């Protein structure tokens, strides 16, 4: 491996070393507090840094044994969930296929795998099979629940999928609307809630008792006007404020929430024309993945954009974050998983990102990708039509 990742800062005296590869950028709306620039390499404007992160400092991962699935994965956003069980030396995986969720429980070496399949629940008088949109484990202090969202409603199970503990049916509208109806976007929040999004833009907040089935819908958040795609809660420590939750929608708009006693909206981040399919929140930093292959980093409290990364050539389908190290992974239709490292400059407090690793899953449009541990030493991914979960571990 060559020199460590290089971040080029520049001053009026030293020109940006990456100027040869720079593409002129147009500022959409100039902000009053900063200079408007036509080229990022204008040495007179000190308010902007252009940084090029090199892959030379590759932190190596190598391919490990894949985990087979009982059914192939569907092309849905965030279509892989992972639950590491350290004490049992097992890892649970979940991926969605049509109206079924495939669960696989794998030993550490991947040699011993057991399977279970869960079905979408048909609602009331329904005559058509309901498609599952997402399956995700929600880790709360006292319990872990597996949540399934579908066209008919929301199912919650014990973490091994053995018992369904709660069912919430989505409102049936008569006459049936021309738009699709479904639930999508799942996250645990503040140690006591599970938040689930809907196709109409609502975020349903469920109060989860420490045990038992007495789960209740406690609040409905109405800020989004487009279908919810993903929800994320703060997985690190927020240094400056109390932004606990971020919700994303099909138009690309993001809402940032506080959830102390009641949920309140802190800030809204406008869409720029592309779907935000996946979102993560860590130490007050929002990482959002978009349909044009970009990852954008924002300050959660203010909503200010801090970085734009041309991460992928096609639609991003998954992001994940390892909270103990700040590693970020992105998976997209372009067949690539990219691993990044988020950090804050100790001097300026600025958000920084550098690229660590690239992995190509040949001939596969990735639809799900997750770290398998909170340090980010291993990650897993699956793709459309793939009947396995590919895994990589740090060398």
């Amino acid at each position: 491996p060559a020199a460590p990742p290089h971040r080029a800062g520049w001053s009026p005296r030293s020109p940006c070393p990456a100027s040869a590869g720079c593409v002129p950028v147009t500022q959409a709306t100039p902000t009053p507090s900063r200079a408007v620039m036509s080229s990022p390499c204008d040495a007179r404007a000190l308010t902007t840094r252009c940084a090029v992160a090199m892959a030379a400092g590759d932190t190596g991962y190598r391919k490990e044994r894949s985990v087979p699935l009982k059914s192939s994965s569907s092309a849905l956003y965030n279509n892989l969930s992972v639950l590491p069980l350290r004490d049992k030396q097992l890892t649970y995986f979940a991926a969605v296929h049509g109206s079924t969720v495939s669960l696989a429980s794998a030993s550490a070496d991947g040699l011993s795998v057991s399977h279970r399949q869960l079905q979408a629940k048909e609602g009331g008088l329904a005559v058509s099979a309901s498609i599952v949109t997402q399956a995700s484990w929600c880790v709360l202090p006292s319990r872990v629940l597996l949540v399934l969202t579908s066209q008919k409603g929301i199912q919650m199970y014990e973490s091994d999928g053995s018992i369904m503990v709660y069912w919430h049916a989505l409102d049936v509208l008569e006459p049936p609307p021309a738009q699709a109806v479904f639930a999508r976007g799942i996250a645990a929040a503040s140690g006591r809630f599970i938040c689930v999004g809907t196709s109409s833009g609502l975020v349903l907040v469920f109060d989860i008792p420490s045990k038992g089935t007495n789960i209740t819908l406690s609040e409905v958040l109405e800020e989004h006007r487009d279908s919810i795609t993903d929800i994320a809660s703060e997985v690190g420590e927020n240094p400056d404020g109390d932004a606990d939750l971020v919700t994303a929608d099909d138009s690309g708009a993001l809402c940032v929430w506080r959830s102390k006693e009641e949920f309140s909206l802190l800030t809204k981040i406008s869409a720029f024309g592309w779907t935000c399919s996946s979102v993560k929140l860590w130490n007050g930093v929002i990482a959002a993945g978009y349909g044009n292959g970009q990852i954008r980093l924002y300050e959660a409290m203010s909503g200010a954009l801090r970085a734009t990364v041309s991460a992928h050539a096609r639609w991003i389908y998954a992001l994940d974050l390892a909270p103990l190290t700040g590693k970020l992974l992105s998976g997209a239709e372009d067949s690539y998983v990219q691993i990044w490292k988020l950090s804050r400059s100790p001097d300026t407090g600025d958000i920084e990102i550098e690229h660590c690793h690239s992995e190509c899953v040949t001939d596969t449009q990735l639809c799900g990708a997750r770290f398998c541990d909170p340090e980010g030493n291993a990650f897993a991914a699956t793709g459309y039509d793939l009947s396995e979960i590919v895994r990589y571990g740090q060398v």
Partner: protein
Amino acid sequence: GKTALLPQRTALLMGSFVFAVMNDIITTMFNKKFMEELFKPQELYSKKALRTVYDRLAHASIMRLNQASMDKLYDLMTMAFKYQVLLCPRSKDILLVTFNHLDAIKDFIRDSPNILNQVDETFRQLIDMYSCLSAGEFQLIRQTLLIFFQDMHIRVSIFLKDKVQNSNGRFVLPISDHSLLFKRVEFTNGGSYISPQREGSFDLYGDRVLKLGTNMYSVSRPVETHMSGASKNLASHTKENAAPNPLAKEELNFLARLMGGLEIKKPNGSEPGFRLNLFTTDEEEEYAALTRPEELSYKVINIQATQDQWQNEELARIMGEFEVTDQPSQSTSKGDDLLAMMDEL
């Protein structure tokens, strides 16, 4: 043997048949009643339902196909469309693919103004309905279509030859320029990257730019598909092929309305029939029918397009009784009757 009967080759021998067949199929498919039903917002069809409609359309002319050839044609169509949907670089491109299909159809019937008008009318309805959808909404449509095509890995000769499909039936995905080791990071607060790609036209007439959806057989090619080995990789059970279930009743409702708009052609005594065989010989076709793997058989609702069945008054009465209604429970008993009748055909 590469002597499959494709329109291009057949034209050398039977020009008038081709014209008649194309006209009839396109006229039938684009008739007002059928299109009205298609444009209604509804769930994705099951594989069984789609195959049934396809069979019916294929019998809209004097052309006939045996089961094996019909299966093969359907396999080809499905895998080709799966390829087109999967590889669309941008989600809105799936609309351009449809426009490419329509452009090609219009070319077949360019000398028949009446049918051309019908197709243009459908074109306009598509533009009205879909042009304003966002990239996110198109991606949802694409994701839903991909669920339909999931686990289908039938190998198609032309795709294998062109190296767009591997020998295991999976499509080759072009890798974009990742030789760039530099991941461009821009620390700023605003600004956008201008995409240099040319976008295709979404108008009634225009350069679509996208090649997906244009005629795969513009140069004469073999039309083989391969069954062997395809079944080994099936990891999922489709519940579709099970005995009649509640799903089937609602679908039959829909199918009955849809088919109401599709007239089938009955070959009369004076006109010779025309049977299309997609295999080299009749024996090969029979053999293919016998050896098709169980999990790949399309257990269609077999509405035989023969004179006898369609003169069956009972069936005609039941079909005529279906009204456009959104209350599936009302038609439950009728659905049962029709279902039972279909199974006997």
